[in-house]
């Protein structure tokens, strides 16, 4: 019961703040609402018993990505944008795609569908999580670390102020 109340609170907060993220004109306010959204989604993860995921969400999103956004906004000095106008065909397109997706969502939520099979594997806690991550998913885990190294190098090279030249 309490878990449901907490879930509803954080879920409602996440939805509200994510609407505010995309409707704010000022980019810095958008970033602050993004931080709110991310932290309330971390709360949702805690109520879903994904404690490790919630902790990673707080550390990586709340501590890393949001600060990165703030730095970039300070660097590029985002000002208020001019009013955003579009032509007719893109406007029809951007209304039609989300509308069709909304219909799909409502069908999924309210349509009758086959029930999910009951869980078979035991355990949601840290030991089962860590064991599966470091045995079954060990190779993707290592590949992800290589990916992060490549991203580090690539981001530095792309964002350099001067281009790299051959020395010879």
């Amino acid at each position, binding site marked *: 019961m309490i*878990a*449901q109340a907490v*879930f*509803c609170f954080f879920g409602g907060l*996440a*939805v509200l703040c*994510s*609407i505010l*993220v*995309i409707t704010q004109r000022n*980019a810095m306010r*958008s*970033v602050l609402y*993004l931080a709110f959204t991310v932290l309330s*989604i971390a709360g*949702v*993860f805690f109520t*879903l*018993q*994904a404690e*490790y*995921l919630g902790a990673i*969400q707080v550390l990586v*999103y709340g501590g*890393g*990505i949001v600060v*990165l*956004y703030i730095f*970039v906004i300070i*660097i*590029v000095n*985002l000002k208020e*944008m*001019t009013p*955003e106008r579009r032509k007719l065909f893109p406007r029809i397109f*951007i209304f039609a*795609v*989300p509308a069709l*997706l909304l219909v799909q*969502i409502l069908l*999924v*939520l309210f349509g009758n569908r086959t029930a*999910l*099979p009951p*869980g078979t*594997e035991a*355990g949601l806690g840290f030991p*089962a*999580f860590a064991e*599966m*991550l470091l045995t079954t998913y060990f190779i*993707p885990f290592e590949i*992800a670390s290589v*990916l*992060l190294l490549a*991203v580090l190098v690539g*981001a530095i090279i*792309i*964002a350099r*102020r001067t281009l790299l030249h051959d020395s010879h």
Partner: protein
Amino acid sequence: MIPINAVFGLGLVVFFIGLFGVLFRKNLVIMLMSLELLLNGVNVILAGLSYRLKSPRGSIFAIFVILMAVAEAAVGFALVLAYFRQKQTYDVDDLRGLRG
């Protein structure tokens, strides 16, 4: 016990709002923020499935999604910075340099 439909609904609504942001806004930085919202919606659904099926698999996939999000944010911002240095703008309507 949280009903799985509520978790699906929350994840889909957050995903949907992020999709609206990517499609409607023309500011590159806010479009990147909306991409983070998309990935967060997917993560909520993955965590809900993990909870419902009593298996850590969903959480592990969500961890990988977060890794992808970090990589995407870093490279995306490097590209935004490089683009801003060239053109002094971040409106997607001006991103037409490669048009045939």
